């Protein structure tokens, strides 16, 4: 039997979290290769359409990382992300997508260790959940 390897799509903000991931790499810390990173200018730029599209195209989990509250390059983009995320989580539950498959966290440019830890946790949680139960309805 093939071991299930979750596919996690990560949306990382350009100013803090993407730098945080770089810090993680530069300091030779290890994190699972299950995450596919998409760099966005701000966590507030993550349109709920991106998240739905990720699940529709076969992601098992979606991780959104932004600057800590108060540190946003655009002042309150991350607060907007937090508002959307709260409502989106409730909505995704109605689509049959469990809470553990979506996560919003704050990672600063210096928090390489924290980045590795969040990614590892997320991958392990989704690994336990397994693939999305059933299939997303498609055109046919």
């Amino acid at each position: 039997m093939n071991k299930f390897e979750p596919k996690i799509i990560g949306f990382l903000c350009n100013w803090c979290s993407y730098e945080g991931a770089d810090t993680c790499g530069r300091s030779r810390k290890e994190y699972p290769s299950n995450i596919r990173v998409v760099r966005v200018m701000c966590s507030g730029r993550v349109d709920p359409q991106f998240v739905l599209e990720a699940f529709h195209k076969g992601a098992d989990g979606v991780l959104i990382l932004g600057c800590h509250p108060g540190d946003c390059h655009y002042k309150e983009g991350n607060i907007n992300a937090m508002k959307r995320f709260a409502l989106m989580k409730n909505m995704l539950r109605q689509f049959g997508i469990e809470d553990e498959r979506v996560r919003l966290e704050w990672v600063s440019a210096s928090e390489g260790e924290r980045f590795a830890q969040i990614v590892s946790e997320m991958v392990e949680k989704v690994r336990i959940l397994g693939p999305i139960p059933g299939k997303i309805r498609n055109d046919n």
Partner: protein
Amino acid sequence: MTTKPKIALYWCSGCGGCEESVIDMAEDILKIADAADIVFWPVALDFKYEDVEKMADGEIAATLINGAIRLDNQEHEAKLLRRKSRFIIAHGSCAHLGGVVGLANFSAKKEIFKRVYREVPSVLNTQGILPESLTLESGKEMELPAFHDTVKALNQVIEVDYYIPGCPPVPDQIRDAVLAVVKGDPPPDGHVFADTKALCNTCSRNASKPDKLQIKEFRRLYDSEWDPEKCFLPQGIICLGLATRGGCGERCIKANMPCRGCFGPPGNVVDQGAKFLSAIASLMEPYESSEIERLAASIPDPAGLFYRHSLASSIMRGRISE
């Protein structure tokens, strides 16, 4: 004698309101009758499916199909009419986007049958019989159209040329669409007979919207009263005009009811529900995460509210199925 172009109308999974909207054209229907012959319209005229089958391919100038596709006979008729028609016009929200009937995609076929034929209090079905597409009764075979797993918008089954949005559609737009198409002046492919921008752009209450719109509490329609002159959103009433195509003539707003999105997404939006979610969430006032979560949780059915008319044509198309 010159022959007039032919048009047809067909009804799939819908409530019949779209058929009503044709009747609501009132005397304008005479303008349609002057410009075209109606050759097939099951709800009003006695033509048979065989009559359509006998027509040459492309013989009908335009066919208006209302309702979503749920049963296999609907898919069959839609494909037949596609062959026989030069233009197919999706008529109303259900054909355009899946409509309210598309909300059934939150449930599996199995659950729907169990609920409708066994559990509904007004149903007495002691043997627990469920509809089958083929039944044997006294040695005779009886057929019912098969029930698909998923509700589909018309363009998920056949190619659609134009769309008349709305639940129900606006009679003037039906008239203009039919006349434009049969008089040899068809718009570009995929045209939606309404505005391109969101309803808020033309809303009569737009002027009363504050510069910075912030919502402290969401209020429900059944336990609230609101100012009939002012924008709904600062009053805590969720109005979905901000990501809904305009052109409806503000029928709901003028009746002091908030928009529920029946005209579908504006021109540049793929997933209307996701855009509603995005817009409404960012109007929430709190900054603190527990307050944000409390306010978000006060919307009891976000998926049903945001995808009321567009679930079947959204990115997810419905709840993930087994």
